[in-house]
């Protein structure tokens, strides 16, 4: 079934109420401002980035660490590693707990990859963030609260689809990461008004589906 949600699987969630300062420092937190850490691993990295950003909108937390693992979830170092480790930090353990709850809500109900072919072997992430939190806004260099289309697909699909997305609406590329990423995908952040971001994201998804259906075109070659 095309464009069926491929739901992300949360592999681990842990909360360290009062982390050791050395650990805080090595994961990018500031022991002066942060006390508590929230950790999550998941088999889909991009929905997790979106969910981490969502956490910053619901609680007084900072995303201090978020890195994708090489070659993706299918080649993970262990059953709990998945594709990404995300870490949020805050001064108040309750805030971190609230942040983790928002993050898990987002992974369960909002951010996910979609199947671009019937077999479900091609994944596309045409996600629209209506209002950026202070994590992704910093990554993308946009103002918190603005809208953004977060687009991810495998290399060839991404290239064709990004072109379609940029032409579909009045959007500006905030960041384009050509392939390969750590997980061998490619991604782009497009900024614009929310309706433009939505139009661009849907054009992107439609183009990925189109490439998946007809990978070799024109056939004359």
């Amino acid at each position: 079934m095309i464009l069926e949600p491929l739901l992300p699987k949360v592999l681990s969630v842990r909360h360290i109420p009062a982390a050791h300062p050395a650990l805080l420092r090595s994961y990018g937190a500031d022991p002066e401002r942060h006390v508590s850490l929230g950790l999550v691993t998941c088999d889909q990295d991009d929905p997790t980035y979106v969910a981490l950003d969502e956490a910053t909108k619901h609680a007084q937390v900072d995303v201090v660490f978020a890195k994708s693992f090489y070659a993706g979830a299918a080649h993970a170092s262990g059953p709990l590693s998945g594709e990404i480790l995300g870490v949020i930090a805050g001064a108040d353990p309750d805030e971190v707990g609230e942040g983790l709850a928002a993050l898990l809500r987002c992974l369960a109900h909002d951010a996910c990859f979609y199947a671009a072919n019937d077999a479900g072997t091609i994944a596309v992430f045409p996600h629209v963030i209506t209002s950026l939190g202070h994590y992704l806004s910093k990554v993308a260099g946009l103002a918190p609260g603005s809208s953004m289309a977060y687009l991810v697909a495998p290399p060839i699909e991404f290239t064709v689809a990004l072109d379609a997305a940029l032409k579909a609406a009045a959007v500006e590329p905030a960041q384009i990461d050509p392939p390969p990423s750590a997980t061998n995908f490619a991604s782009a952040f497009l900024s614009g008004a929310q309706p433009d971001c939505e139009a661009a994201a849907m054009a992107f998804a439609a183009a990925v589906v189109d490439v998946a259906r007809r990978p070799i075109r024109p056939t004359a070659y």
Partner: protein
Amino acid sequence: MSALSRTRELVAALRHELGAQDPLPPAPPLPKVEPPPVRVFPTRRTESRYAQAASAHTTALLGIGHVGTRYATDVVLQFQAELAVAHEAVGTELPDDWAARNGLLPLRTRVADHREFLLRPDLGRRLDDASLARLRSDARRGVDVQPILADGLSAVACMGSGLALLEAYTRELEARGLTVGTPMCAKFARVWLEDEIGEAVGAKVAAILLGERPGLGTGDGLSAYLVFGPRVGKTDGDRNMMSNIHARGTPPEQAGRRLAVLTRAMLDQGTSGVALDLANLAAELGEAAGTAYRAPQKRVRLVEVER
């Protein structure tokens, strides 16, 4: 589709557009939202017992406590109510016929209206020509003391306890064998008006009793400013003053006695203000003030709360 995700709605619509009709698997169940607690308990109010004990002895804002980093709601409402009282006192105008109705010689300064009175203190310090002429023709001249009742910045205070203070002061002065000038009342008056009036009637001491600038909770306070040898050009350094003359501060009766003691000292020493030696007056002022026990005054509560 789940209303939680705009993207999922959009993709479902796109999927339909692309011709896929088969139903999607059901969305994961929404998280249960806990019902709100039956009663929401407010943040506990924090109060210092020491400050509360101290607050029983003063009308000052002690022991008001705090809720987190803020004032408690009733304290904020009390602030606002008291500020409204102060605004109203400043905004009140003394009726033109009030002085005449109460048997006082009516005077008026060069101020045209209430707004000008607030904006031009200089005009409130001089009498207009008609008042000056009336003063010269009707007022008793060459007296020891010329008391002047005036509205100042609170006509409410003037109309409230002004007459009581004027009577108490006059009575105390006469009891000390001093001659007192014609009772008079000036509208739109500032403190320094007493210089011109005192000079015009040739009084040895001029005393203006006027509504003071209202503070929180005191829209009805009177002040008295006394000057020896009044003439235009005297400064504040030449004056002695007493403030907070109202029921919860110094009551008019008591204030009248203290002012009379002060006036007597001015006449004896032939000076006033900074030069006046108050060192030997302590006992007398204390006696005049009444050294008997006075019950602690409570701040008037404009906002009532149930505890």
